């Protein structure tokens, strides 16, 4: 198992390099030459060239990328030109807030979707099933920032129960987490339901019932443990969606996370900061997907056996 994990980590390195290159390349294409906009009006060609070198911006794209990655490994993502501070510091200042929001939303999504999906599947074609399907479809189809604004309107502006923005106190996370969680819940409910429906048709549940296992134990123990396997596989993409969705939600709720930081960086053309944020975001996501993959192995003995070989 340990060897498998190590192998997966090593295999991840080329993926990470490729991902960061794609992002670096795209951001490099962005119009606007920072150096010439930074340089004083009377700077000569040679001055500009020297500045370029100092900022690590000389050479072709591959040379610059190699240098960038080399610096990244030393924990240096360059300077944020708009904030006049190292990108890595700015990123890690904001990152915990985004993580908190992402995990808060996934927690809410799981709390809603697993029971809802199970009761939809076990009451197949009943009103519970119908209602949960309508709800999950709405969750999937609603633009999350719109839901966020509606929640602000209802719970902060009209009822005054919860804050509409900010951070630092617990109640501040409730609305953004619900907003971001709703979309994930829609997806997860559907997957839980269809996975449970698939499992409830399996012969081994009949075996369990024939042994005299009580119906709720059949569902909670025998069915759910099998149904969880496909749910875990989409958990990674759920987290990806949550992190991506966080970009807009952070803007709506003025949540001081990386998503809002990235958008702001692009708006002021602080490409160093934007590139750093997106690359770090992606590295984090890739690592999480790997962890999910390993968790998957623990849930299914068939896969675990495959890996330990």
């Amino acid at each position, binding site marked *: 198992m340990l060897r498998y994990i190590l192998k997966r980590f090593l295999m991840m390195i080329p993926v990470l390099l490729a991902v960061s290159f794609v992002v670096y390349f795209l951001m490099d294409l962005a119009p606007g030459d920072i150096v010439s906009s930074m340089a004083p009006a009377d700077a000569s060609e040679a001055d500009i060239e020297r500045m370029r070198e100092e900022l690590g911006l000389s050479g072709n794209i591959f040379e610059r990328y190699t240098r960038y990655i080399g610096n990244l490994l030393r924990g240096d993502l360059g300077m944020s030109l708009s904030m006049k501070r190292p990108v890595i510091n700015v990123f890690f200042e904001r990152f915990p807030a985004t993580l908190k929001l992402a995990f808060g939303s996934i927690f809410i999504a799981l709390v809603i979707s697993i029971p809802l999906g199970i009761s939809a599947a076990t009451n197949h074609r009943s009103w519970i099933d119908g209602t949960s399907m309508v709800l999950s479809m709405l969750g999937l189809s609603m633009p999350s920032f719109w839901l966020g604004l509606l929640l602000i309107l209802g719970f902060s502006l009209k009822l005054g129960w919860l804050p509409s923005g900010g951070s630092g106190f617990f109640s501040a996370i409730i609305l953004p987490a619900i907003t971001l969680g709703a979309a994930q819940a829609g997806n997860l409910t559907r997957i839980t339901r269809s996975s449970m429906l698939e499992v409830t048709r399996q012969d081994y549940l*009949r075996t369990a019932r024939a042994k005299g296992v009580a119906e709720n134990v059949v569902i909670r123990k025998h069915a759910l443990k099998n149904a969880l396997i496909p749910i875990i596989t989409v958990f990674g993409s759920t987290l990806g969606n949550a992190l991506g969705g966080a970009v807009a939600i952070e803007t709506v709720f003025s949540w001081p996370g990386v998503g809002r930081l990235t958008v702001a960086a692009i708006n002021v053309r602080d490409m160093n900061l934007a590139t750093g944020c997106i690359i770090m975001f992606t590295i984090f996501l890739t690592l999480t997907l790997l962890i999910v993959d390993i968790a998957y192995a623990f849930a299914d003995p068939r896969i675990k056996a495959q890996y330990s070989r």
Partner: protein
Amino acid sequence: MKEKDLILDLQDLYVRFEVEDGVVHAVNGLSLQIERGKTLGLVGETGAGKTTTALSLLRLVSEPPGVVECERLIVDGKDVMALSQKELESFRGNDIAMIFQDPMTALNPVFTVGDQIAETIAIHENISQTEAQKKAIDMLELVGIQGERADEYPHQFSGGMKQRVIIAIALACQPRLLIADEPTTALDVTIQAQVLNLMRELRDHYKTSMIMITHDLGIVAQICDEVAVVYAGNIVEYGTLQDIFNRTKHPYTEGLFNSLPNIRDRKAELNPIKGLMPDPTNLPQGCPFHPRCPYADEKCKEEQSVKWVSDTHYIRCIAYEREGFHIKLEEKR
């Protein structure tokens, strides 16, 4: 008839499934009695309602879409139709157990086989988890698997081994009545014989009454005391092993025997029963077998009734009494 010690007394079982495309009449008025310690073979083609009958005995037919009705269903003195959900749970696996057809899918892939055997013991016997595990290992060894394999998962076992595990689960609490639903169909021929022998040994060891569901007349000959031939959800011929094999009376049973390959004459052509099982959503009037029956006449399209041939042997056929009726069995047994 004299009073018998019955392990199973089933009277007029009807099971239908109400699905979108219509009503499937799976079992139609089936009655069955089994004496304690005897083994009954339930024989018939796929779709004849054998498995549904078996599941009804455990009240495991999913309702809805299924609807189960019967006059009387008594297993080991218990009125099964009157049991509460709680009572049913302690009834299943303890008084009655079932071995399913496909060992590949009948075990839960995410629990060890030891856990799956121990679970049934823990439910029905008032013992600790460790004791249940210990008993589970004993059961494994009883069915010929090393005890240390209790910690392994189903995917680490072969088909025959899985079926042994399932037998261990079924017999773990020494049920009075064991139902085996085509227990060897999914296995290789060589493994089939081993599993069948094991089942016979254990049956004799625990003195379990048994229902053996199969379409294999060879298995019936090896293991059964009585045979019920099922067609379209009802018994068409019932009798002792001797009655059915040597004094065959029903045209359908005749057809089953004639469709067996003839070992003595390898050149002989197979002689299968013509036509298909009737559509269970739309059963024919009268005798359901009449469209395929070589002896059927106009009357068979209207009625059918039970005729007792002897004390132990009955058939559901009216052509039997007609003049000139004679079953033509090929000589191959």
